[in-house]
């Protein structure tokens, strides 16, 4: 099957508006504005079964339907913060197929009655942002943005905003705060952005990839989209393959392929090494092992294996990988990215990194591993946003699947016991 989202791989210069239009571009927008009511658009997207591709998987049409009808400013915000480790799909879409994202966003704005779209890029995405900005200029020139789009009374503006580079700004409320010029910290929901979002107005925040699906759905219909993928997880998904594979990169697949198939797609294990584990959702999802490789890539597929599809950023690790090291890497990332707003995440990730670092360095004790696990459980489910839960996943899942590696570290430390005894725990 040809690429639907990564169409630029098949069509040269798709980032240019005339090429994009030659290949059906902006027909969906035309159809929406001239033939469909805003509610009609929402209904189609809802019945297509499209779910958020940023990781949380919330049904897109349902999200749009939460926006209150009636007058007043509303906003569409595109989440191109793409900060999950091992995720690089939105960058490719923004750089190479920006019009499909723009078109999807305009359709979203039309459906909820928004007059303004913001695209929030992570600060490092300069190239992707500039490509998008060029596409926006083209869209304005062609009359797809600005006043009275396609001769209708629907007007819409599109702005790009660059964050300062923070993982937490991918969380929608932190993103909104950052967009407003505030510190990038999430707020405790409710209020949900659909009710009180950007500038305290109803706001839809959608992932870049999610919106790229929308034009296809409008042109080809909800039933067509439902026919792709699985019953519960219809459609296509870009999977970011990285780590110890021969051919890392983005792969567009129908949902439902197995992780084993994905590995094969990426050329198999690098240098013929043996597979050890993979992180299915960047740093934020628990690791899975060989046992789970036949699970399907769907929103529910990894549930029996205690993990999640998330943003489908698959980081593959071979037999040479030190799992304690890998956990430390991930934990360091989350500790560095913790916004500091809520206590368990701020203090817990800091403490856990200290513990895990000691264990990795060979100075830890079996007690340290227990403490590590216990501190992780003190974070889990108690934080303001999901970052705290993400942070403990790599640690808890590696302790679960590779306890012997932790044992080796703490037993290998000849003087670990002595050192630990010398340290006094102070209340």
């Amino acid at each position, binding site marked *: 099957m040809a690429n639907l989202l990564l169409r630029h791989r098949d069509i040269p210069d798709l980032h240019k508006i005339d090429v994009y239009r030659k290949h059906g571009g902006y027909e969906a927008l035309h159809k929406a504005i001239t033939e469909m009511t805003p509610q009609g658009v929402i209904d189609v997207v809802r019945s297509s079964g499209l779910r958020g591709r940023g990781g949380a998987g919330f049904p897109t049409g349902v999200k749009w339907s939460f926006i209150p009808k009636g007058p007043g400013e509303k906003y569409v915000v595109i989440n191109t913060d793409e900060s999950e480790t091992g995720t690089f799909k939105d960058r490719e879409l923004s750089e190479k197929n920006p019009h499909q994202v723009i078109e999807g966003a305009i359709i979203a704005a039309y459906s909820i009655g928004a007059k303004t779209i913001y695209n929030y890029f992570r600060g490092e995405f300069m190239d992707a942002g500039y490509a998008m900005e060029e596409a926006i200029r083209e869209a304005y020139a062609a009359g797809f943005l600005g006043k009275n789009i396609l001769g209708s009374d629907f007007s819409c503006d599109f702005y790009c905003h660059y964050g300062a580079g923070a993982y937490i700004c991918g969380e929608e409320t932190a993103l909104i705060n950052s967009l407003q010029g505030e510190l990038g910290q999430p707020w405790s929901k409710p209020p949900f952005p659909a009710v009180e979002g950007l500038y305290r107005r109803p706001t839809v925040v959608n992932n870049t990839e999610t919106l790229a699906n929308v034009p296809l759905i409008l042109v080809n219909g909800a039933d067509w989209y439902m026919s792709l993928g699985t019953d519960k997880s219809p459609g296509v998904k870009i999977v970011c393959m990285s780590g110890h594979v021969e051919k890392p990169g983005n792969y567009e697949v129908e949902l439902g392929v197995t992780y084993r198939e994905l590995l094969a797609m990426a050329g198999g294990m690098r240098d013929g090494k043996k597979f050890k584990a993979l992180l299915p959702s960047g740093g934020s999802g628990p690791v899975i092992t060989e046992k789970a490789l036949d699970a399907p890539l769907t929103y529910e597929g990894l549930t029996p294996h205690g993990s999640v599809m998330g943003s489908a950023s698959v980081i593959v690790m071979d037999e040479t990988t030190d799992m304690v090291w890998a956990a430390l890497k991930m934990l360091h990332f989350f500790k560095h990215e913790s916004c500091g707003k809520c206590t*368990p995440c701020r203090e817990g990730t800091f403490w856990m990194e200290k513990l895990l670092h000691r264990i990795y360095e060979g100075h830890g004790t079996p007690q340290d591993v227990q403490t590590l696990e216990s501190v992780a459980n003190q974070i889990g489910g108690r934080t303001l946003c999901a970052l705290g839960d993400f942070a403990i996943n790599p640690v808890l899942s590696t302790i679960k699947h590779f306890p012997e590696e932790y044992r080796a570290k703490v037993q290998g430390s000849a003087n670990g016991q002595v050192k630990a005894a010398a340290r006094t725990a102070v209340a």
Partner: protein
Amino acid sequence: MSDLITLTIDGVEVSVAKGTRIADAAKRIGNDIPVFCHHPKLEPVGMCRMCLVEVGLPVRDRATGALLTNADGSPQLNFGRGLQTACTIQVSEGMVVRTATEPVLEARKSVIEFLLTSHPLDCPICDKGGECPLQNLTMAHGVGQSRMHFGDKLKLDKHVPLGDLIYLDRERCIQCARCIRFQEEVVDDPVIRFHNRGRSLEIVTLSDPGFDSVWSGNTTDICPVGALTTADFRFGARPWELTPVASICPHCPVGCNTTMSTRREAMANGRTVIKRIMPRQNEAVNEIWICDKGRFVHHFADHANRLTQPLIRQNGKLVETSWGEALDFVAGKLQIDAHMVAGLAGARLSNEDLFAFQRLFRDGLKSQNIDLAKRRLAGGDVAAQVGLSSGSNLKDLGKGDAILVVASDLHDEAPVWWLRVKQAAERGATLVVANARATRLDAFAAFSLHYEAGQALATVNQLVSMAKVETDTAVTNDIVSAAEALFKAENLVIFYGSEGLAYDETDALAKLLGNLLLIENGHKHAGRVNNGLVPVWPHNNTQGAWDMGVHPAYAPGYKPVKEAGLDATAVYAAVANGDLKALYIAGADPVGDGLMPDRGKLDFLVVQELFLTDTAVLADVVLPAQSWAEREGTFTTGERRVQRYYPAIPVVGQSRPDWQILAQIGERVGLGKPAFAASLTFKDVARIVPQYKGMDYRTLAQVEKQWPDVGGEDLYYGGNAYENRSGLGQQWPVTAEKSAVAHFDVPTVKTGRKDGLQMMWTAVLYAPGTLVDCSDVIAPRKAQPVAALHGTDAARLAVADGDWVEVMVNGTAVQVTVRVDDRAPVGLVLVAGVPWWPGTAVADLKKIVAAALAVN
């Protein structure tokens, strides 16, 4: 309170107003859900995670909406997936909250453990130790031992000045953001913010000078740890050594309730001294806030320059004498022709002092020549009839109500009123501000009417006449719209001040505004609760001075006297031309204030004071008086609430309370034995002044339960300072509450304005003066003499920002710096930090070259 929601917390049913958060609802039934970031005066954020509880919601049938029940008939509950924050979740009907289950207790333990991992635990040297929510909640919910290795702790800066007044200890900070949220949400001074993220999150100041807010001290009260401390109290004492003494702030007419923490101190040779001043909860007055002037400007009470002994002039010099000799001498000198003697008082004296003052003159010396030394604002007689009705609370104003503020900069004249008016506007009250210049209240005003200097009366006249007649809706100018808004309001509160106005103009203004309140267009305002006039008095007890009859035309209780005496202006003239022989000045410094150049042709001048002021050095006798901190008494606020304060520190030297000195002189002129105590003098007040009938020191000391409960037995809202055990005061009713009030005859006032560039005196909170000058801690914030003018005026006068110019203030040349500020109206120079003068004057700015600058 029709929207009551009933929920169950740990098996106890409670009904609370819709919108209440679980944590606040639990507080109502004495269930203390521990919190750090939550504070009932702030918007909830749910970030510390200390208040995690289990929340169950009744399950409904999706199709029918009917409540589902268990087999035993109890409602089915859905407890969700985990613990939720009690501070953010609003109560809902049938909600069931569990606060004592194993997961909840475990979560509390773990949050405490987390907080302590980065906390230095330097309680033994921490200012907060002993009244610290973190300490308290650790004792209540913590495990007592940390599993974190000591060496893993983060080390951070412990002495970070956020400004001159507030220091940050970064190690102690638990990032609850109470301070940041207070500055942003409550007082609209967002000058401190979080910087960085994660464990590097820190509080920084964004202003220059640092933490530039007159509210900064409040952040140290609400800080749940010892992270924020004041430059005044820092390392000064341990909380358990302190004795709390209830007091009333002596600075402005708001009358904030305060607590003075006192301690005997070796550094003060064993004397008891004031270590700090904190707010005392009075939800009708200051809630739980005070401004930094009230908090930090108290050192004058203990200042080394205080007068300690009576002084008498001998051979041209003031020498120490005994009380007996001084009093006899004064009494002898005052008993002359009643027309030749006069008394001027300061409006910071207590009601007892002022009552004794007028009694000495009226009953003892048979003279009606008494007045306040500084006649700045008239209208006490108007407020007595249509003032803010008793039982009013600015906190009750909101949607549908209106507030009018005329000729006053509340932010600098009465900060807590500014705060409460701002909050009323945020709750939906229509705020109309009328002034010759922009003030900070404009940001919250629906209508800002900026009249030309000298046009205050004309503008208010227009406003009043608009409100009287049905207006043509096609007319859309601001005054008409503002008048309409005032006219439509359910409740109407009016504040008025004296900015840019002469005394007789303020009299006309008060009467005009009184008439506005008497207009009944569907809503009766005068005499109804949450309606009425509030004069923004220049001093803390100007209201009391009016009530006590320190006025040439009014005896106590606003009884007109048969033949009015000389007012202050006339007294100063008589001093100069010899029409007056003896002058008694109590608690005022007219020479220092530029109101009286010298002692003129006086035969005898007696000054009763705290310090040897510019006036006192000219006196024949100087009588040392006690400050408010050394004795008890009452002050009456601009909202006419009579409030008691208590003695906090021992008497300085031989100083005596003003009322006692006056009564002892009275004894010598035939007024009988002086009262033994302030409370007995107040009994006389209550007997003579009809408005104070029924009040005594016991009724003024009565308290009742106040909500939100932030000063009680809980472990987390603050130390002992908020709790009010010493009195909420009593607001006296105005005439309009009991009987009809006739419209006021508004006198015609000539503005006497001359053409040319005008200049107007403006109030600043930290204006130089005896009290502010004696508080070193506030010195960096002390207002400097400044003339602010618009860029076009500056260009015309060829002066630039930072230049020095000379202006004439009350006939004296004063050097001020120029600040070019386009917020100043064109044609009007705003002068601050210099002695007050009435009305507006022609601005004659003389640029001075550096060489001619006075060295000071």
